């Protein structure tokens, strides 16, 4: 598939618009990753295509009542249908043995996590909830609107 810059900036059928691509890796796993280690092998002359955002900073910007409200919520992240479609379309096999932790097995790739997590080492809290697309939220419109704001 040829992917052009224009595809990334418009609502192409084939690609997800860049503004809907914010995510935290591996939240579909019961035991998600602590961190990722990235290494640039080939550097582009200009630009690059990974932008980072701080969940700690998001938390710091919340009011105390909002922090308390969110701390009682969990969210469920899942990729099962999407991954099954990709696997079928591209002839990809599933890896169903443990994926970095004994709890990360099988093809469900769906997991529930707290919206607010506190780093056990630093004691610093983070907004762990990160959605790529508001259409995937199924909670009440009121809660959805508050969180997305």
């Amino acid at each position, binding site marked *: *598939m*040829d*992917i052009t810059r224009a595809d990334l900036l418009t609502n192409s059928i*084939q*690609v*997800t618009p860049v503004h809907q*691509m914010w*995510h*935290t*890796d*591996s*939240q*579909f*796993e019961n*035991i998600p990753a*602590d*961190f990722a*280690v990235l*290494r640039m092998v080939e550097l*582009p002359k200009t630009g690059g*295509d990974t932008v980072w955002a701080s969940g700690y900073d998001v938390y710091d910007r919340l009011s105390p009542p909002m922090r308390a409200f969110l701390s*009682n*919520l*969990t*969210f*469920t*992240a*899942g*990729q099962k249908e*999407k*991954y099954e479609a*990709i*696997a079928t379309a*591209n002839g*990809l*096999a*599933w*890896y169903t*043995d443990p*994926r*970095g*932790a*004994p709890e990360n097995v099988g*093809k469900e*790739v*769906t997991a529930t996590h707290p*919206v607010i997590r506190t780093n056990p*080492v630093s004691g610093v809290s983070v907004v762990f*909830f*990160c*959605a*790529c*697309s508001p259409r*995937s*939220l*199924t*909670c009440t419109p009121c*809660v*959805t609107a508050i*969180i997305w704001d």
Partner: protein
Amino acid sequence: MTVELQKELAQRMGLLTGKPSTSGLHIFPLMHTARQIGDKEVTVISDQGGNGKPKDGNEAAAKPRLRIQDPSVSVIELNTTA
């Protein structure tokens, strides 16, 4: 840095910051990564799409970039819990 050293760095950082002893490095649930460099614990990201020419013998650069179609997280449900 080599791929092996990079993996060692990730594993040691995790252990030093208190991850369970049963935890290692994540493996992506779809096996496109294994076809990229032959290591399940490593994901190669390339912006070359289907047009890139293979570099130094591997086919990483020639693989479509799945993440463009496939952000790693979709929130499907928000739960209110006690």
